Structure formats: C-alpha cells, structure tokens
C-alpha cells in the first residue's frame, strides 16, 4: 500500500536527521525544517525509499515523523511511539 510521509509539525524542531536519510524526498527549508521536494505537504514514499523512510521515522529524535497509509489518512489513528 502506498504510504505518505507525515511530519508532526508541533513535535518537529528541525534536527535534520530526516533530510539526511531521505535526501531524495526531503531538503531543509530556510529555517532547518524538512521540506518536501515534491511540493506536496505529505509526499508519497516510493517503494525503493520505503526502508530509508522507515529508518527516518525510527531515527527522528523528536519522534515527529510517521508513515500514513494513503487510504483514509484522517480516520486511522496511528500508533505513536511513547514520548521519551
């Protein structure tokens, strides 16, 4: 199933691990926050980048990244990792 990368903007502090791990999908904006290269706020994750995306989700020190399934993004309640 197609997944999209979702940034929880309230958690994100622009630490930058995500755009280092996913340079094809993300870059830094003027203030150091991840900016989608596709222009969509929640970019689609291509299959070949799936593992990198999962790494980025795991490695985010703020736990601000999630992968959302394309279907019914608003209705699914994603399982969040516990706060550190």
């Amino acid at each position: 199933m197609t997944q999209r990368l979702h940034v929880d903007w309230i958690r994100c502090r622009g630490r930058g691990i995500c755009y280092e791990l996913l340079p094809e999908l993300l870059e830094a904006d003027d203030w150091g926050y991840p900016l989608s290269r596709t222009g969509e706020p929640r970019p689609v994750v291509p299959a070949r980048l799936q593992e990198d995306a999962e790494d980025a989700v795991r490695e985010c020190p703020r736990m601000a990244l999630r992968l959302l399934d394309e279907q019914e993004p608003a209705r699914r309640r994603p399982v969040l990792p516990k706060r550190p």
Partner: protein
Amino acid sequence: MITELPEPAVHRPGSPCRPRLLATLDADYVEHTARLGPLPVLGPRDLVDLAASSGLTGRGGAAFPTGRKLASLLTARRTVVIGNAAEGEPASSKDELLLRRAPHLVLDGLLLAAQALGGQEIYLYGPSAVLASSVRRAVAEREDARFVRLVAAPDAFVSGQDTAVVQAVQGRPALPRTNPPATYVSGVRGLPTLVQNVETAAHLALIARYGAYWFRQAGTDEEPGTRLHTVSGAVRHPGVYELPGGASLDDAVAAAGGPAEALQALLVGGYHGGWVPWDPITRALPLSRSALRDYDAAPGAGVVIALPARRCGLRAGADVAAYLAGQNAGQCGPCRYGLPSAAAVLERLAEGRAGPRVRTELDRLLRMVDGRGACSHPSGTVRLIRSTLRTFHGEVDRHLAGHCSAAPVPGEVRR
C-alpha cells in the same frame, strides 16, 4: 466586538425570503418553545438522514457536510458534543450574535445532537462575556440544558480550530494539535468528539422541526438554506445579515445598506479568504464555493469586508497578513518563522520599499509555509497573501515603480 443589527433580514431582490435563525430574537425559553414548538427527539439514523438530505454544511468556515460529520460518530458508543462559537476572526460576529440573541436555538441543536449520538458531555465554547450573560440565563431557563458546560474561549485567531477547541475543553491552552487523528475519531479524552459551529447547530434545531425539504426552500442546490454573513468595511450599515445560500456579493453589500463609498474589492471568507474585485460582473457572483473558486475564496464563515476604492489594496492585505502572522501559535516552525518573514516582505512592498525580485521572493517563502503546520493557519494566511498579490497586481507594479494609486501625489506611498 458585536455589530448591532439594524434590521435582521433575509434579502434577495425579486424573491423575498424570510429570516430563519434571526426570526425570533431575544426570546426566553417559554416564548422560544411557544413559537417553534418543542424540540423533537430524534434517533441517530434520523438525525444523520435529516442532516444529509438537507445539504447542511458546517458554518464555521470549512463547509464540511454536516450529515457526513454526524455519520462518522454513529458507531461510537460514547461521544462528546461541543458547540463552537470561538470566531477568533475579528471581522466575524455572527456566532456571538447568535449566542447573545438566540441562545435557545443553539442549545436546541447541541442537545439534539448529543441526545441522538449518545453524547454524555455537552460543552459550549465561546467568548466569556456572552457565556456569562445571555447563555447562562438561557441555560438556567431550561431543565434539559443543565448539563451543558460553558467554556470560555480566549480571544485568539487559532482558538476556534477544532483541535484547539478540544484542548480548551480539557482545561489546556487553546492551541491546535496535530491532525490526524481527527477530533471525530479521537477528541476529548480520546472519545469521539463532535465539534460543531453554533450556527450549524442552530440550523439543525430548525431542520429537526421543519424538515430537510423546508431547509432547501431557501438557497440553491449547491448552497441550500440560509447563512449568516458579517458584512463590514465600507458599507452603510455594517452588521450580521441572514441571506439565502447563493445570494450574490451585491446582495450581501445591499443587505448592509449598500456601499458607503466607491468600492474596489471585497474580502470574502474572512482573513483566510480571498479578494474578489468589485465590478459590474463580479458583484453578481453568487456566494458559493464553485463561483468563488477562481478567486480562491469561499463563503466560509460568512465574512464579507468591503474595501473602498480610495484605499491601497496592498496596504489592506499587508495589514491582514501582519495580524495573521502575529496570531501564529508558535508551535510549528514553518508557520512561526515563515509567516512573519512573508508578512514583512509584503509590508515592504506596501510601503514601496521592495525591490524588483519581490514577487519571486514572496513566492519562495509562501511555498515554504503552505500546508506545513498542524492546523490551517499557515495555508489560510498563504492564501490571503497570494490573493492580495493576484488581485492587486497592478498596484504591485505601481509600488515597484514608486507610486501608489491611493496616494494623492504620484511618488508618495501613503500608509
């Protein structure tokens, strides 16, 4: 700030339509029930069917179909119902007007929804002054409303976002939270929560009594029913007016007594809306989503602001942008840093101090803000700034050349 109603009236030349929400003002509970009859008791299915077939949409701004919102709560065993009257928007006063002068209609709508959906908690969230006066009085007048809890909304632009409403009801700062999950999936203490604009609730109270067909007798297929509009700016009688759905921009201005002077544009849909130029063709456009799409505007929460011809459109847009930038909640980086940057560039342009690359620079900044926050504040503000640049593009050129059409002497840019 509430603008007094000179004469609440539904106005459409050629096809008069009677006011509905504003038909009975300042009625106590006895008079309210005597006029409208008792509040019917509806099952969950009946309520959803009625709302869906009436075509009622949310009147808080997003215009989400009410039937679908209610339907998404059908499977929940316990729900929370919140009436949202936090307008935040300085140019809107229709929700406060409803609470002040027709509170029983709002309470009816909330009790109806709570009763049908198994809502065990009911909240009414709005400006503290009106809660402490007319709403408190109304709640005291009726037995069925004694469980309605009143929660004061802070006077901030983002305090009416549904995730912020859910926070406030739980005693936390009224700041937006990340979505998903949507509030109707997980809201107050994780319970599915209906956050409903108070005008929407009031319509529901009438639809429950008179039916979906009655509701559709006013308005158009696309915008059925009536809608409250707060009309302000350069009109003779600024105030709140009830108009049939799909009424024209001209109708909205005429309802407010007509233009007070020559106009150049209307800001439709409020501070997160879009400018529509005021000319013989555009003023006939209906206040509907499809007709206003080209202007990136929508009826939204019913705000219409008339901009006089003598004012500079860039100055007006820059003032709104500066206000919105200052209203960011400081939670999401792109909004926190991007909006003040973009507003500052627009301000430089309005002052006539911007360089030739200002359009490119603003476009780059706006793309770094659009859609990048937990709530709709960044996108709404981006929409307003883009609309300002598009609508007043001639003014942008003049400002770049050191002029302003609002200035008495060419070469002098007036604030």
